[in-house]
């Protein structure tokens, strides 16, 4: 399991959601990098019983994910773009095909 994250080819900063110009160095050249895991920072339980979390990839890129299976704050869990996998995992929706062509 993994998700695709945008990375600046110049300064190597990673971004999610995709940017059009790198806020860190101002260039427009990006590549896609595979991110396999994220660390959970906060968790909130919704009225419908689902669990949403703030997580970070490599302690850098903040994400909003839905937790699949049992996972807690500080856990490192696999990232997935599929909501139907067995947990523990973090579901990060990414449209396919993408809603906007980005590199």
């Amino acid at each position, binding site marked *: 399991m993994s998700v695709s994250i945008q990375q600046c080819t110049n300064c190597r900063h990673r971004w999610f959601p995709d940017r059009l110009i790198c806020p860190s160095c101002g260039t427009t050249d990006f590549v896609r990098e595979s991110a396999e895991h994220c660390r959970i920072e906060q968790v909130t339980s*919704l009225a419908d019983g689902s669990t949403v979390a703030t997580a970070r990839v490599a302690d850098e890129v903040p994400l909003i994910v839905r937790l699949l299976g049992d996972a807690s704050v500080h856990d490192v869990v696999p990232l997935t773009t599929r909501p139907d996998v067995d947990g523990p995992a973090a579901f990060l929706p990414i449209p396919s095909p993408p809603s906007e062509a980005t590199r």
Partner: protein
Amino acid sequence: MTTSIIGAGESPYTRHPPGDLTTSQVLADAVVRALSDAGVRPTEVDGFAVSSFTLAPDHAIDLAWRLGLRLRWLMEDTNGGASAVAMLQHAVRAVESGDASTVVLVAGDRMDANAFRTLVTRYNRATADHLTPLPVAGPNPQFAMLTQRQMAEFGLTGEDYGRLVLSQRGWAERNPGAVYRSPMTMADYLHAPIVASPLRRFDCVPPVTGADAVVVSADRNGTRRARVRAVSTRYNVDDQLGDGLRTPLAELSDGLWEASGLGPRDVDVVSVYDDYPAMSIAQLLDVGLLDVADVPGSLGRLLASGRPAVNTSGGQLSAGQAGSAGGMHGLVEVVQQLRGRAGERQIPDATFGLVTGYGMILYRYGACANAVVLEGAS
């Protein structure tokens, strides 16, 4: 040149709008009320700005046309809770430069269940692509987690947030325009259903239909008015990479107070943008009304003292959130306080006021914030 707000009006807020009531009609009602309050005829208006999430397919020029306005200055602002102060900043500069002499600013929406669902699921591309499919419908989860971070950072408890909510409900009891006016106890607050832990029902604004408007002009002696002493805005100060506990107000606060010639303790009445209690606390902290070393204690003392009085309309948490009018609601309230027209909730001798705007949740928290310092004059 000094620029003032000389009139204000609010189209009555309602949770259940009539089926045939449109956004344009609600906005027009607020404009008519503000012009009447200012004693200004529509033919005198030469500047106009609007903010609305549900005005489409119309835009500012369509609304101006239907309002019969012939203009030299026109704008449309899309920044939600930050739109009121943003439009005011532009209007002040327009009057100062001579591009317009009498400007009407209006914000509002017909915000029924369908409109709210459409708004929150397609708020921006990031929301449509990465949040709505989670699925979540609206920003409650993000602000629940921001509240957790704030509680951990400053030692805040549920009772601290409750004190703020109850204080605002107390003001709402004296505001006939608030949609929720019944007395609330701490037990009511703490035992309300969880929406997104730790947020409970009364931490979340009730969507309503309504609109707010103000009339801006060069200073007019003999008119009860709210002079603009200083206004400032910031956008996207951290690329959504921070924790959201400090808003862009932290960056502009020192300059705002210096430009106004006042300090935070000089103001008598404050409207902070209260989409969630955590954001009210964040903004009060950013503008210097809370002590970063003792946020719970200084919040309690501020609310107990009532100086300055905070969110005297009841705020959006009790009065309601009329879509894009959230920021304009706070502006109208402070203007009316400074003009001595706040009815049962009037702050005696209110002279100076502060209004903040906050909004546009790009992914994790709001990216826009602004503030204006006002002075009552007659």
